[in-house]
């Protein structure tokens, strides 16, 4: 059975209120076609787990770039991120009380997603010790002292959906990422119930050298042709 579906089919799977991980860093690596379609869907109340709120103004003259579209359309009610400074609409909607934002240190955020996808009970990191991060009870299980050094035990993160972007994706779902686009998508593909990859280029099985596959196809449920 082919994993390739249309962008409309992909968006049709995502219900109102879903928790959605989106790969990318300030828009770079966001699955732009899926986000476009989702932004037109009228759906909302999403919990968005994404490094950032992207930014207004994309490199190709986009008015809102990547996930910034979802925020601009007020489809997001809860954003879990590490940095939102480049998208002023995030702060504005927070102040209005319409958007809940939780900020987690970026390295912890990445590792919490990895833990969620790899069956680990949490992440013991020195990052955030002695800061207000310790008070984020939804994300921090405990402060632990190990051999005289303090660590935060951060909880694993998972989501209903992961939407990621790959430069070359073969028909089995094996993914090769170009440039700095793999960032969080690589781990998100392991940590969601349904994983949809937007392929800039769909290639034949075997075109990606077995050693150069970065996300094995077994993690990918559906492929959307992002180049079409």
């Amino acid at each position: 059975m082919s994993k390739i579906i249309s962008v409309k089919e992909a968006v049709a799977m995502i219900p109102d209120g879903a928790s959605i991980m989106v790969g990318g860093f300030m828009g770079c690596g966001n699955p732009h076609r899926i986000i476009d379609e989702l932004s037109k869907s009228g759906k909302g109340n999403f919990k968005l787990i994404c490094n950032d709120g992207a930014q207004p103004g994309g490199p190709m003259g986009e008015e809102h770039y990547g996930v910034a579209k979802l925020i601009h359309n007020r489809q997001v009610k809860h954003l879990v991120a590490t940095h939102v400074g480049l998208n002023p609409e995030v702060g504005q909607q927070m102040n209005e009380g319409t958007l809940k934002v939780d900020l987690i240190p970026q390295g912890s955020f990445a590792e919490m997603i990895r833990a969620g996808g790899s069956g680990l009970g949490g992440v013991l990191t020195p990052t955030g010790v002695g800061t207000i991060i310790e008070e984020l009870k939804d994300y921090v299980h405990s402060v632990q002292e190990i051999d005289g050094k303090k660590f935060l035990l951060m909880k694993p993160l998972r989501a209903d959906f992961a939407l990621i972007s790959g430069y070359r994706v073969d028909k089995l779902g094996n993914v090769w990422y170009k440039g700095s686009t793999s960032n969080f998508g690589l781990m998100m593909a392991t940590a969601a119930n349904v994983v949809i990859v937007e392929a800039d280029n769909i290639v034949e099985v075997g075109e990606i050298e077995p050693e150069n596959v970065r996300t094995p196809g077994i993690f990918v449920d559906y492929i959307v042709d992002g180049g079409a």
Partner: protein
Amino acid sequence: MDREYIKNFIIARAAKEIRDGDIVNLGIGMPTMLPKFLPENVKVTVQAENGLLGVIPCTKETYDPIYKVDAGATPVTVAPGGCFFDSCTSFGMIRGGHIDVTILGALEVDEQGNLSNWIIPGKKLPGMGGAMDLVVGAKKVIVTMEHTQKGQPKILKKCRLPLTALNCVNLIITEMCVIEVTDKGLKLIEINPEFTAEQVQEATEATLIISDELKPMA
């Protein structure tokens, strides 16, 4: 000194902290200017926490803004021998002590080397991004900033804003001076000859220990 001059002055001084072969992570803004102040015999590898090593500015030919940006979302590329990787790998590198130096700005620094640079409650909530991991993980943490903010000291007895990390700063470089964070407190080790030690202390809330070997900043 105008602000552009100040920035250049601070970063030129920061560049002297860099040794040939260092792996460095440069915060958004002023620190990214560092590479152009390095002498020719000092080669660094710039890491960007979104997953690049060997970051260099892009040219017209290598401009590829959809696929290749640095941690400030600026289109960049990597030098020959550079590479790209995911965020877990990147922060493993950072947290694991594989970055020699990180240089970043601050809102406040205090006597214990505590740092605040990510939030002004009720006013500004950009988020910490990778800063909390960087200052905990890098072998050496250098803060570059203007000495005061609208005349108010930023180098304090105790940080008042929420912290980025405890006891993490090694060196503070401003347009007035260079301060080393020691077990005993903040040690003034270099001073811009345009200022006196008294003037520096006046612009600083924390008590400075003046080094026996105080040098002119240059």
